[in-house]
C-alpha cells in the first residue's frame, strides 16, 4: 500500500467516522419476535438508509408484558429508551403516568411535523388518546378481531359465512357440524368476546366514558347481553357447535389450520401466518353480532400496540423520534407493513395506496379488518381506558375458562369478574394518588 492510498483511506475513514458521530442515535424497544420482528427491523433499517441525520436501533425485549416491565424498570433508573411499544391492555398504565411520555401530537408539532388526527382511519384515532382527544401514543401495529372461515368447509356444508350470531346458531353452525367440522373456535375471550362485544354492539363497557374521563371508573362488564352471549357459548359447546381449547392463542388457531375447526375468530393480523400455514382456501368476514341486541352494529376496537415517545431525552433526540414517527406513518411504509404482516394501515392515505395497488383484489380477506374499523362509530366505540387492565384480563380469562369447563355458572363468573375488576380499578386509582 502506498502512502497516498493510506492517507486517502485515513481521510475517508475520518469522514465516515465524523458523519457517524453527527448522527443522533435513538433506541426503540419492542415486543415483536419472529417474522413480525424481522419486518420491524426492516422498517428501522429503511429509516436509517433513508437519511443520514438519525439512526434508530430496535431492541427486542420479549413479550408485550415484558417490554412494558423492562421500560418501567428502565424509567425508574433513568435509562429509558426513546421509543417504546406498548400494547392495548397496557395503555392505561403508560398514559396514566403523565410525564413518562411525550404526547405524540405535541412531539410532532414541536418538531415541525404536520399532524392531523383526521388523516388516521376512524377506528384508530382515539384509542391511544386522552380524554380531550389528544393522541398520546402513535398507533403502530393495529389489528381487530375478524372471523376467518375455511371455504372448503363452508362449501361442503352449503352455507355462507354468518353475519349474525342468530344465523350461526340456526343455520351455519348446525350445517358445519353435520359436515363433520367443529363449526367455531376463537383465540382470545377478553379481547374478542368481551371488549369487542361491547364495541360491536355499541354498549357501554365502563363508566366515565369507558374510563377515559376519570379514575373512579367502574366496569360495566356484567351486562345482560354479554351474559346471554356466554350462555349461548356454553350451549353451543354442549351441542358441539363451539370448541374451546384453552386460554393459549395458538392452541385454538392450530385447530383451524389443521382443518378441524371450520371458522375461527382471530386477529386481522393473523392473516400472514394463515396464508403461510393453512393448506385450504380461506377468507374472512366481519365479527358477527347479535341481532337481538342491535340492528346497527358498530366498529370494533383496535388491538395490537402503539409507540410511545419517552420523556427525559434532549431536544435533538426528540427530533429524531419525531422524524421516525413521520417516516413510520408515511403511506408507503404503512402499506408495506400492512402487506407483510396483516396489521391494518393506520392512515386513510395508506389504505388508498393499498387499494390502488390491487392488494385487496388479490387478498379480499386482508381488507376485512380495516373495513370493520371504518364502520360507523358509536358513543362507546372509540376505546376503553382502565388501569391494571392486564390483571382484569387475567381475571376474565380465569372465569371464562371456569365457565367453559363447567366449574362455575355464567352468572357467578360474571359477578366475580365484576367484583374483582372493580377492586383492581379502585386499587389502580389509589396508585395514581
Amino acid at each position, binding site marked *: 500500500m502506498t502512502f497516498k492510498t493510506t492517507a486517502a483511506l485515513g481521510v475517508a475513514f475520518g469522514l465516515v467516522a465524523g458523519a457517524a458521530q453527527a448522527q443522533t442515535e435513538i433506541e426503540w424497544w419492542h415486543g415483536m419476535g419472529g417474522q413480525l420482528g424481522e419486518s420491524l427491523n426492516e422498517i428501522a433499517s429503511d429509516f436509517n438508509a433513508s437519511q443520514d441525520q438519525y439512526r434508530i436501533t430496535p431492541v427486542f425485549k420479549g413479550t408485550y408484558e415484558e417490554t412494558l*416491565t423492562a421500560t418501567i424498570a428502565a424509567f*425508574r433508573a433513568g435509562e429509558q429508551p426513546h421509543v417504546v411499544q406498548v400494547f392495548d391492555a397496557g395503555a392505561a398504565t403508560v398514559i396514566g403516568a403523565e410525564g413518562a411520555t411525550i404526547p405524540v401530537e405535541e412531539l410532532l408539532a414541536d418538531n415541525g411535523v404536520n399532524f392531523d388526527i383526521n388523516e388516521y382511519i376512524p377506528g384508530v384515532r382515539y384509542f391511544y388518546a386522552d380524554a380531550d382527544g389528544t393522541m398520546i401514543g402513535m398507533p403502530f401495529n393495529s389489528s381487530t378481531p375478524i372471523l376467518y372461515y375455511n371455504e372448503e368447509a363452508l362449501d361442503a356444508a352449503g352455507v355462507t359465512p354468518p353475519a349474525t350470531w342468530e344465523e350461526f346458531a340456526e343455520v351455519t353452525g348446525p350445517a358445519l357440524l353435520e359436515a363433520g367440522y367443529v363449526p367455531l373456535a376463537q383465540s382470545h375471550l377478553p379481547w374478542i368476546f368481551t371488549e369487542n362485544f361491547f364495541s360491536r354492539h355499541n354498549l357501554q363497557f365502563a363508566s366515565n366514558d369507558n374510563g377515559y374521563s376519570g379514575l373512579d371508573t367502574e366496569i360495566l362488564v356484567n351486562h345482560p347481553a354479554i351474559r346471554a352471549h356466554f350462555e349461548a357459548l356454553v350451549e353451543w359447546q354442549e351441542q358441539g357447535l363451539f370448541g374451546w381449547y384453552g386460554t393459549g392463542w395458538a392452541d385454538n388457531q392450530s385447530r383451524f389450520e389443521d382443518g378441524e375447526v371450520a371458522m375461527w375468530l382471530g386477529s386481522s393480523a393473523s392473516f400472514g401466518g394463515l396464508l403461510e400455514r393453512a393448506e385450504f382456501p380461506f377468507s374472512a368476514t366481519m365479527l358477527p353480532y347479535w341481532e337481538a341486541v342491535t340492528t346497527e352494529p358498530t366498529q370494533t376496537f383496535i388491538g395490537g400496540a402503539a409507540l410511545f415517545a419517552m420523556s427525559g431525552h434532549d431536544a435533538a433526540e426528540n427530533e429524531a423520534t419525531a422524524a421516525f414517527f413521520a417516516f413510520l406513518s408515511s403511506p408507503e411504509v404503512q402499506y408495506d407493513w400492512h402487506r407483510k404482516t396483516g396489521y391494518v394501515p393506520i392512515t386513510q392515505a395508506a389504505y388508498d395506496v393499498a387499494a390502488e395497488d390491487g392488494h385487496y383484489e388479490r387478498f379480499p380477506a386482508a381488507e376485512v379488518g380495516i373495513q370493520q374499523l371504518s364502520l360507523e362509530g358509536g358513543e362507546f366505540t372509540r376505546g376503553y381506558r382502565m388501569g391494571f387492565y392486564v390483571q382484569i384480563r387475567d381475571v376474565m380469562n380465569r372465569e371464562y375458562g371456569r365457565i367453559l369447563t363447567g366449574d362455575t355458572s355464567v352468572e357467578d363468573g360474571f359477578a366475580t369478574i365484576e367484583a374483582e375488576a372493580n377492586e383492581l380499578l379502585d*386499587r389502580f386509582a389509589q396508585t395514581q*394518588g
Partner: protein
Amino acid sequence: MKRTTFRNPWLPILLLSPQLAIIAVFFYWPAGYALQTSFYLQDPFGFGSTFVGAENYTRLTSSANYQDALTFTIVFTLLVTFFSLAIALLLAVKADKVLRGARTYRTLLMWVYAIAPPVAGLMGVMLFDQSRGNLTQLFQALGWDYTLGVNYWDTAVAMIVVSVWKQIPVNFIFFLSGLQAIPRSVHEAAMIDNRSGMSRFWDVTFPLLAPTGFFLLIINITYALFDTFGIIDTLVKGEPGNNPMTLVYRVFVDGFRGGDLGGSSAQSVVLMVLVLILTIVQFRFLERRIHYT
C-alpha cells in the same frame, strides 16, 4: 468441639464482611424494600403512591383466588417432593446394585440434571401438546380425555410430572453417594441378622441415609416452591387463564405482568414468612431425630 477464639474482636467481623455485604445487598436490601412497598399502592412508573396500611395483606385473606393458589401450592409441593424423592431413591438403590456398566448407567440417570427449567418446560409442552403430544396421545388411547390448558387438573398433572422428572437426577446423585458412603461391614453384619432385603433396607440403610434425605427434603421443598417457576410459565405459555398457579408464579403475574407492585410485594413477604416458618420447623423438629455419623 474446639471453640475458636479471637483476641481482636474486629477480626472476625472483618473476615465476615465480604459475605455480609453480599447478603445485605442481594437479600436484606431487596427484602426490606419489598416490605416497605407492600404497605403502599404505587404507580409503576413511580409518579404517585398511596399508603394503604395492611390492605395489601388483608385482601389476600379474602381472595378466593389466592386461597386457591395457596392450596394448590401445598398439594403441588407435597406431590413433587414426595415423588421426586421416592423415585430417585428407588433408582439409586437399584443403581447401587448394578455391577457391570455402572458408570454409563449412572451417567444416563444424571443426564436430565443439565436441563434448564424453561427447556424442561418446553419439552413438557411438546410431550403434553393438545394435538401432537406423545403423552396426550397415550392418555387418549387409554381413554382419558386429556387436554393441557383446558382442564385445571390436566394442566396440574403436566406441571407435577415435568417438575418431578426434572428433579429426580439431583436427588439420585445425592442418594447414590449417600448409599456408597455406608460401610460394607454394616451391610454384612445386617445380612447375618436378617435375610429379608426389604426389612434390611428400612432398618439399616434408610436410617443411615437420613442425613442425606433430610438435606434433600429441604432442597426439594425449596425447589417445588420456587424453582419450578420456569416450568410453570412455559406450560401455561405465559397466560395463566383458569390453570393452576403456585404462589411464586402469582407474585410474578401480579407484579411483573400486572404492574401491581404493592400487591405483589405483600405476597412475596407472605412467602418469605412461610419459608422462614418452614425452615424453623424443619430444623427444630426433623433434624433432632436424625443422627449424623
